[in-house]
Structure formats: C-alpha cells, structure tokens
C-alpha cells in the first residue's frame, strides 16, 4: 500500500473511532460523491466491517438519476442503514434554483438536514469535506461544533491540540467531524483506485465532458475533459489547476464579488 495513503487512512480512522467513542448518537452524511464514499469505506474499516450508525443522504430532488441508482446499489451491497432526508414541503411548493440559488440550497439542503437532526437527535455528524476544496474550508477543524442554527463561530473556535478533541457544553447542538480534512483531491482518487471503490459514472468523460464534482443537476456544470479512467482523471488534475468547484457557479461569483469588494476597500 502507498505509504502516504496509509498515513492518511490511519489518521482518518483514528478520528472516526474517536467520534464513535465520544458521541452517543452519530451519523455519517453521504452524498454518493467520491469523497463521502471514501469516508463510508473508512468507517467500514474502522468498525471491522459493518458501520454501526446510520448513513444519511440529503436528497434535494434535483440530483442526477445516475446518483440515485448508484446510491441504492451501494446501500444494498454494503448493508447500510440508509436514511433519506428530503424537504417534501418545499419541493411540493415548487422550490427550485430559479427562486434563487441560495434560497434553494437553504430550503432543500439545510432545512432538510435541520429537520432530520431535530427528529433523530443526532449529536455528531461525519462529513467528507477537505481543506483544499474551497477557501472557507481552510478554517475547519477535525471536530467542529455547531449550534442549533448551524452557526459556526469560526472566529472563536475551541483549541484543537494534539489530537485531543473536547466537546463544548455551551451553545452546542451537534459536532461536525471531518476525517478527510487533510486529504487532497488527488489523494482521494488514488485511494479510490487502490481500494477499488465504486465510483459514480458521472465522474468519467462522456461526449467530451465530465463532472469534477457532483452537486444538483441544474447547478452543476461539467468541465471539458476526455478522462475516462481514474488514472486519466488523476493526470488531468495534476496538470490543470482549475479549482474543483469551478462548475458550481454560485461559489465562483460570490468569491469574485468578495474579492472585488475587498479591492475597492469595502471589507
């Protein structure tokens, strides 16, 4: 096994095991993307085969059909305790990105999750975010507390020293656990290859395009590419440096605006 991946894996598994030991009602979020599938696999390894807590899929209703197929197949094969979170009301009343992207994400993703948390009283959630994904992610910690409104006081984060993770007792609704923080995009692909993990076919090129990251159908734009194997994908990533979320239009505009306003002295 690749020595580097071994190190990454060790650290992640230690974090996942700590999460299980410290929190009574744990769940892992799974988007069926490559990162969260790696996290699921790491959970399987950590607990010697079967994941002893629920796997949550937030279904916005706008996901690619390939995603739904993939999800159900893996859930069956891996014996997952799968919970699907959907904001049915918002969908019925016609919520869509046309009503404003921010509004749509808030209603269909955040609200759906909030309601599930309330219902099932999860006190910790494992998520697959990585530091190199996006600017604001660089501030995240392995264990990151959230209050009831999912607000994250990143200005006053508790100290995270020496792998000792302490749960705050004030203003606390649930802990977010990020075992994949220290992995890069390339690390993830190499691990997927090494472990022979199932991959959503959308990641591979079809008709000269492929999806580098999988959001919802209306808001995710494919990038031009001919990469149709994992090796080719890894090569492509190494040579180009387009940020992964380049297809997520909303992020890019917001990032640009922030930069521009800062250069004008507004912030």
């Amino acid at each position, binding site marked *: 096994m690749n020595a580097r991946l071994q190190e990454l894996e060790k650290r992640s598994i230690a974090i996942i*095991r*700590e999460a299980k030991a410290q929190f009574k009602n744990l769940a892992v979020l799974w988007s069926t993307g490559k990162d969260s599938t790696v996290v699921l696999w790491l959970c399987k390894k950590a607990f010697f085969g079967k994941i002893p807590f629920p796997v949550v899929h937030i279904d916005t209703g706008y996901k690619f059909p390939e995603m739904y197929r993939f999800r159900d197949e893996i859930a069956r094969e891996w014996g997952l305790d799968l919970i699907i979170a959907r904001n049915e009301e918002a969908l019925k009343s016609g919520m869509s990105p046309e009503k404003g992207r921010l509004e749509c994400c808030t209603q269909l993703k955040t609200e759906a999750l909030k309601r599930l948390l309330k219902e099932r009283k999860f006190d910790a959630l494992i998520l697959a975010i990585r530091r190199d994904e996006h600017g604001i992610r*660089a501030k995240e910690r392995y264990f990151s*507390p959230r209050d009831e409104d999912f607000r994250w006081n990143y200005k*006053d984060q508790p*100290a995270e020293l*020496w792998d*000792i993770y302490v749960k705050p007792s*004030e203003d606390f609704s649930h802990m977010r656990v990020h075992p994949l923080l220290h992995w890069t995009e390339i690390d993830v692909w190499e691990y997927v290859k090494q472990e022979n993990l199932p991959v959503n076919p959308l990641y591979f090129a079809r008709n000269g395009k492929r999806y580098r990251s999988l959001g919802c159908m209306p808001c995710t734009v494919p990038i031009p590419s001919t990469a149709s194997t994992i090796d080719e994908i890894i090569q492509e990533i190494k040579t180009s440096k387009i940020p992964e979320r380049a297809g997520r239009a909303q992020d890019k505009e917001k990032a640009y605006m922030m930069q521009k306003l800062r250069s004008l002295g507004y912030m």
Partner: protein
Amino acid sequence: MSTDRINLVVVGHKDHGKSTLIGRLLYDSKAISEEKIEEIKAELKQTGKEELEFAFLLDSLEEERRGGLTIDIMQTPFKSKKRLYTIIDCPGHREFIKKMLTGASQADAAVLVVSARDGVQDQTRQHVFLIKTLGIKQLVVAVNKMDEVDYDEAFYQRTCSQLKPVLRSLGYHNVTVVPVSALKGDNVYRKSERMKWYEGLTLIETLDEKIVPPSLPSNKPLRGVVQDVYPYEDGRQVIVCKIETGVLKPKKQVVFNPSGKTGRLEKVLAFGKVIGKAEPGESVGLIVDGVDTVERGEVLSYAEDQPVKVRSFVAEVILFSDIQIREGDEVTIRYGTAEKKCRVQRILNEIDPVNLTVKAENPEVLKNQAVGEIEFIADEPLCLERYSDIPELGRFVIEGAKGAEAAGIVLEINRHS
C-alpha cells in the same frame, strides 16, 4: 521523488511580514492554480499593486487583511525540490494565542520571521518561547524586509546578534538565519542578486537541508491509549487502541493501567485483517487473552515496562481565553483518551513569556491567558509521563464550557511539595 511531508509553522511579530513570506513561498513554488493567479493579477493590474499579490493569495480566509492580520490557521502545501511542506500560518497578534497554539501544536518545524528594520521584538520572544514549550525542536529564522533597509548587511548582523541569546536560552542552537525580502522575492526561492555579502542558502534550500522529517517514536517504550471496545466474533470483544509510542507485537504480555488488567496479546487486528505489528499513530484492535473489556482512557504497555502511576505532577500550563485557575480548583484534564479530575494544589509561579522570567512566585490566581507552573494532585492515579520523555502522554488539556480552555505540559511527576 520522496513523499516527505513537513508541517511548518510560521511565527513572528504581526508586522514583520509573515503573511507576505507565506504568500511568496506559495507563489514562487506555484502552489496556487494558474486561474486563481490570473484572477488576482487582473484585479491588481489596475491598482499598480502587483507586488501585493502574495497577500491577496491568502484570501482563502475572508476574515483577514484588515491591517494585514491573519486570524486563523490555514494549511496550504507547497513544494520544494526535495519535499512537500504544509504551512500552518500563525497569526502574530497577542490576542490569538489560543489559535496560534493550535496551529503550532502540530508542526514539525518552525520558521521565525523577524523584520530587519525592527529587529527582535517582545512578540518575537513570546513566539519562540511558545514554540519551545510545545516541543518544536527545529527552527529556521528569516530576517525579512531586507528591501526596507537597502539590503544592508549591518541590519542582518544586528538582528542575528539580538537573536542569539534568546534562541540559546531556550535551547535552540546552530539555528540558520537567512536574510530575505518576501515582498521582492530575495532569497526565499531565488538567490538574491542584491545581497552578495550573504553566502548561505536561500530559505527554501535551508528548509530542505536543515529540517529533518519527524521520525516515528517507535524506539520508545510501548504506550497505547484505549479508545473503545467493539463487539467481535464469537461473543468476544476487540479492544481498540491507538499506539502512541513503541511497537506493538502479538504474543507478548500486555498491561492496562491504572486498572492493572493484564493478559497475553493474542491478535492485533487492522480493518478485518490480522497484522504482525502496529506502529505509532496506528489505531488497531486487540484481542487479549483474559481481558474482555477495558475502560476508555486506560494506557496500554508491555508488562516489563509499565508507566508510573502518578498521584501528583507539576505542569507548565498555558491559559486560553478568559479561564481562571486558583489554588484549590478542581479541574478536568484530558490526556490521550483519558478524562480525569485533578485538584490545583499550588500555583508555583507565573512566567512572563516575553522576558522568560518568573513574573510572580506563588500567585493566587492565573488569568488573562497567563502561563505558569502548577502542582496538581490527582483524584485517582493517572498514567502521565514527563513531556521530555514521552510527549504524547506528557501533554494534556483542561476542559471548560467552551471546550479545551488551557493546555499543560508535564514537567515532573510525583513530586511532593
């Protein structure tokens, strides 16, 4: 190409150019995507501020750039010819000690930035003190802003002589000091044309030469911490343990302390496979003959080299935020995976991290992010080690409502006043 990775922390006074240096390292090593650089260049072309690109490169964190201060940690890797470095940026502002400590605590080496013009400041000393307290043994110094002093060797030499006593008194010897200009790019990646009097290596070359990748503490006595117990086959349980030091091999007699439970280690499991050994950093499952369950927090070792059961200890403690510690206080400490109660027997002194002198003997209280030596009495025996022997079990945090509110490093064990 080696996959060597080094974690670096960059410390120094907030106005001495840490952020610019980091930006320069990232920029010159091409750690930032072409597209992002183009974006920033287009913005800056208009303002004629091309050189400040590097500061803008660090805009991953929105909360920054008011007066050039960074506020939180950022991990951004960059490459040299030899290896991959990950920087953990440390802010230079006094108020962010807590966050700075969190950044410094995972580093393998530190780069200290000192301005050639201003020289060694209080904050400079404070940072060196804190790095030392956290056990970072490798240090390289960059004397920055050489462009502001016309690349004059006299300023470099002056700073070197200011640095020597400070570094030596804290145990840093033979530290390489590189004169650089992060803004202009001199001696960071590229050898400077403007400092012909300097015959040493550039900063990146110095890092490659002088910094040694951390070696695993495999040669120390075996110490592991129990994380959890999971059900296994045949109604048995597997004890999940993280190895901190030493090497774990099956068929040997192991002991869990402070409970004293002991048995022969039958199997070591990793992810469903039986493995032959486990090294520091690995979290593995143990099947121990005669021991079915053990409490989280217990310390694993071989029978022939067990940790001392500690009843009292002296630690150097650093307070974060607004916690206060008084004699007689009951605190909960966390070390390894253990969570134990202790009483503050005596506050021996308060240390001034700036002057490195004792500020007060036997103060009544430590507050305002103070640093001091405290004698603790444990309610039940603990398996702490001296930080200088086994740092992994020689450090702890003190719990408060907000999470970890203070950190401690064990100086002595079982000392009686």
